[in-house]
């Protein structure tokens, strides 16, 4: 979507005044001075984004949602801290916190970033004349942030790679699977791959793996392979995102060494009762030991504690994929497994738990 003109970003539509949220005065949420038409005076003390203090605003009516969403991953960004701190030592956390504030914190999400305005990453601006949008529009909110990987995969924007069948044929938006409850409450989990899977494919495909399932491969592989092993296609991997603050502008910036397409099956680095699979697709994430050298030396001294090929759930699901066309499209096919020769020598140790040492044997025809 083209960037909004400055006036488009802030014009209030007529519908807002019939909305329950339009029944209070502007200053009740935004402060400022409504008695003057002089712009600077009117905006003096104004709070552009009142939802930065959601208990004072949204929480007056939506108290339960505000209370749980404070700990949701969209708000807390706890998933980032889990991996940053895991690769580091406590004495380096201050420097990492500074790095995070400069370069990552802008991805923090408020109530309004989904329900009132576009996120700043796409220039901001009211979604619908300040009317509260109950279901966030996918491309103006969800994939405005989750665009470079999830959005491109889901909508088929990677050249030659089809979009997700749920989008192409089902016209499903993100919230069809990622419902409001899961957005507003992370239920105490500090990473998106912690705790019970949500969403699950089986929520809709409830016959998969059961005795009545006509696809025998589902029964054979159901606890061995995640659904994406057979049903996702080539997806994005990245290398080495280095962050810093510009000496000339004072603005933070990043440099990513490489972005490329992969499809590789690895051992499950997050094997739990909730994710019991032996094999999952793995994506190279943009980490290296020197990602944050601008903020200090050796800030990731425990770099090898977590893999750089990470558990992945590509969002480009297909019914038929190259690897599920036949048994031996996968069995005996070392090309689609993350074997040691595909891992950078300096990252071998970090990925010992992910690298597939022995590719499943060919099945005799």
């Amino acid at each position, binding site marked *: 979507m083209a960037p909004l003109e400055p006036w488009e970003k802030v014009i209030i539509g007529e519908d807002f005044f019939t909305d329950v949220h339009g029944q209070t005065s502007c200053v009740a949420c935004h402060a400022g001075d409504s008695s003057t*038409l002089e712009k600077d005076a009117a905006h003096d003390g104004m709070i552009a984004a009142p939802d930065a203090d959601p208990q004072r605003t949204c929480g007056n009516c939506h108290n339960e949602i505000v209370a749980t969403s404070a700990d949701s991953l969209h708000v807390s960004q706890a998933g980032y801290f889990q991996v940053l701190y895991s690769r580091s030592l406590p004495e380096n956390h201050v420097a990492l916190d500074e790095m995070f504030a400069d370069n990552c914190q802008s991805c923090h999400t408020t109530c309004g970033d989904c329900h009132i305005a576009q996120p700043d990453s796409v220039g901001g601006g009211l979604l619908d004349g300040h009317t509260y949008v109950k279901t966030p529009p996918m491309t103006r909110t969800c994939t405005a942030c989750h665009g470079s990987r999830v959005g491109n995969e889901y909508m088929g924007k990677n050249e030659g790679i089809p979009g997700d069948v749920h989008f192409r044929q089902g016209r499903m938006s993100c919230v069809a699977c990622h419902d409001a409850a899961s957005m507003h409450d992370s239920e105490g989990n500090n990473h998106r791959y912690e705790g019970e899977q949500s969403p699950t494919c089986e929520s809709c495909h409830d016959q998969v793996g059961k005795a009545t399932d006509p696809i025998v491969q589902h029964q054979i592989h159901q606890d061995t392979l995640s659904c994406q092993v057979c049903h996702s296609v080539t997806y*994005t991997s990245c290398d080495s995102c280095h962050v810093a603050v510009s000496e000339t502008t004072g603005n933070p910036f990043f440099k990513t060494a490489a972005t490329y397409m992969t499809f590789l099956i690895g051992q499950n680095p997050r094997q739990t009762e909730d994710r019991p699979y032996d094999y999952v697709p793995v994506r190279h994430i943009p980490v290296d030991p020197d990602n944050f050298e601008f903020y200090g030396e050796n800030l990731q001294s425990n770099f090898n504690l977590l893999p750089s090929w990470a558990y992945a759930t590509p969002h480009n699901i297909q019914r038929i994929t190259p690897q599920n066309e036949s048994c031996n499209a996968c069995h005996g096919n070392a090309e689609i497994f993350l074997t040691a020769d595909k891992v950078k020598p300096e990252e071998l140790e970090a990925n010992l738990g992910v690298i597939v040492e022995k590719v499943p044997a060919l099945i005799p025809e």
Partner: protein
Amino acid sequence: MKKYITLLILCVSMLLLGACTAKSTTTSVIDETEVATSQATPATIIPVSLEPPVDNCVVCHTDKQMLIDTAEVEEEVPETESEGVG
């Protein structure tokens, strides 16, 4: 004697009537005061409630031309030094 008794009844009746009249007069004075008081209060409120304060935030933010006229010229954003996919 009969005339005396009749005169006495007449006097007592007048006395009672007089007393009743006095009481009703007092009551009516109170009522008038109450009415006057109860009418005075709304008389000071009505003009205020008929003219709610103008919310100039809405005046401006529903007027496209006014927003265009008052928009600040956006500062030229310096070219980002970022490279690669974020």
